[in-house]
């Protein structure tokens, strides 16, 4: 059974057709890439599936259940996590607080327990703290745990964002340009980390990326989006040799 299935998803912003008849079937544990020139609608697809916008037409089902029309926090609670292109971190909070905060939906204690320090609350917080530190270790940012997130090197901030997304225990993880602005060393490390979380958590990943090398290396299948439409879909090898894909990318470079 597919974990995430998007069927004929179409979206208009006013008169602008942002996404047209987008289809996606993501199997458990699959890593898939979404590439395309700037403005092709890649991030819009993320926003439509995660509930920030509601698609004009089409269906989205997570584990067989419809999620169109649910609010973002409900979709997130059902197992869809994501990171952002511009890395929305909470600038004055520490690294550890970011990851702890991401456990919000897993905490059960009530207002009364919070104020009077019920044993349940302490047990829960202890578990959250342990799990947070474990995640920070996986993402190689444990040594920054008590630091304010903005004091970290850029690549480490990206990894904190990803650790935060993983702390919500997603079944499907959307990564929006996870290597944007990274140095080649950080990029290589990121490939290792994505492989690792993929193995360890069995999470399905859909990633938007501009660096083709990165996508080719990680993804089993790749979709190419131009003007909101998928023009090509296939294995990295097929995509690399597809004339339409080459044209779309060359076309973009001509403009630039």
């Amino acid at each position, binding site marked *: 059974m597919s974990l995430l299935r998007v069927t004929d998803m179409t979206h208009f912003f006013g008169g602008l057709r942002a996404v047209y008849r987008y289809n996606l079937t993501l199997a458990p544990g699959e890593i898939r890439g979404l590439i395309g020139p700037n403005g092709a609608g890649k991030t819009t697809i993320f926003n439509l599936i995660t509930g920030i916008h509601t698609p004009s037409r089409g269906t989205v089902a997570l584990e067989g259940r419809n999620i169109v029309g649910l609010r973002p926090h409900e979709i997130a609670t059902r197992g869809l996590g994501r990171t952002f292109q511009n890395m929305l971190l909470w600038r004055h*909070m520490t690294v550890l607080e970011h990851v702890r905060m991401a456990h919000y939906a897993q905490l059960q204690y009530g207002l009364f327990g*919070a*104020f009077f320090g019920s044993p349940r609350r302490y047990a829960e917080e202890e578990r959250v703290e342990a799990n947070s530190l474990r995640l920070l270790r996986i993402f190689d940012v444990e040594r920054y745990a008590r630091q304010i997130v903005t004091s970290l090197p850029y690549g480490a901030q990206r990894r904190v964002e990803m650790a935060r997304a993983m702390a919500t225990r997603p079944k499907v993880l959307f990564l929006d340009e996870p290597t944007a602005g990274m140095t080649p060393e950080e990029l290589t490390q990121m490939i290792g980390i994505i492989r690792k979380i993929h193995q360890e958590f069995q999470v399905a990943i859909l990633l938007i990326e501009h660096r083709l090398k990165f996508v080719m290396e990680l993804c089993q299948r790749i979709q190419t989006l131009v003007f909101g439409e998928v023009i090509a879909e296939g294995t990295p090898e097929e995509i690399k040799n597809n004339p339409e894909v080459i044209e779309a990318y060359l076309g973009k470079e001509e403009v630039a």
Partner: protein
Amino acid sequence: MSLEFLLQNVINALQWGSFYALIALGYSMVYSILMLFNFTHGDIFMTGTYIGLGVATGLLALSGAMGIVLPGWLLLAMTIVIAMFLTSFVGVAVERVGYRPLRDAPRASAAITGLMIGIMLEYGNLAILGTQRLLFPPIIETVTYNIFGVFVTNKKIVIVAVALSLMLALHLFIQKTRWGMAMRAMSFDFQVVPLMGVSINLIAPMTFAIGSALAAAGGILYALAYPVLDPFMGILLGWKSFVAAILGGRGSILGAALAGFLLGFIEVFVPIVFPSTFRDLIAYSIILLILTFRPYGFFGQAHSTQLRL
């Protein structure tokens, strides 16, 4: 100026600072999370005070009918807790009816709506309770202590102690609980926080509820010291506390509390040097001068809305 005189005025300043700080916290919390100055807040303070009046009167009548004499401090504690609880619903209602439909609207629309709801609360009160001023029942007897020549009433001690305890409770709530952490995160963005499974439509009303409950506590403490209530009592105190919230740095909880106390000190100490009719003129000139040099307040930063402590 003798030391006794100085200490006497410090105590008065702490009392006034407690009122301002408790109200200013509500402005700051709402601002940091929703980027919105809740101009209804002064009138929520007024409403909370009247709710406190109702609760205190009710409790007195109830205990009288049952033939038991409750100690004053217990009556006061019950009044504060019940009134805080009830007033929090006023805040939730204001958020739900007034501000939530305008969440994506220009901030000016929300500000105007807030002002109008405030006027509705004032005149709603006037319509229901009439034009006469009401007296807050004297639930605790005034006891004056003479400590080395400084006169301190038990009420002043209660006012400052309750205000400080509530601020400490708020601090712990924001730092230690999951909702507090969600509030701090929400002061940065509305986009990521829901992805953590947080409903904004839970946290936003919760923020209003806490701010309103603190205002109600401030109102009851105020009524202990100045027991004559009128429907427009929230206007001046509300605006002054709003100034304190700005002076503290928009969105800063610690700043709002400190600035509230600073305001109390300026207002109490200015009339010692100048004629008392000059009090607010000079006090607020001083604040304007501070803001000229620190336009973002004590703990604010340019474009910052963070809920910090």
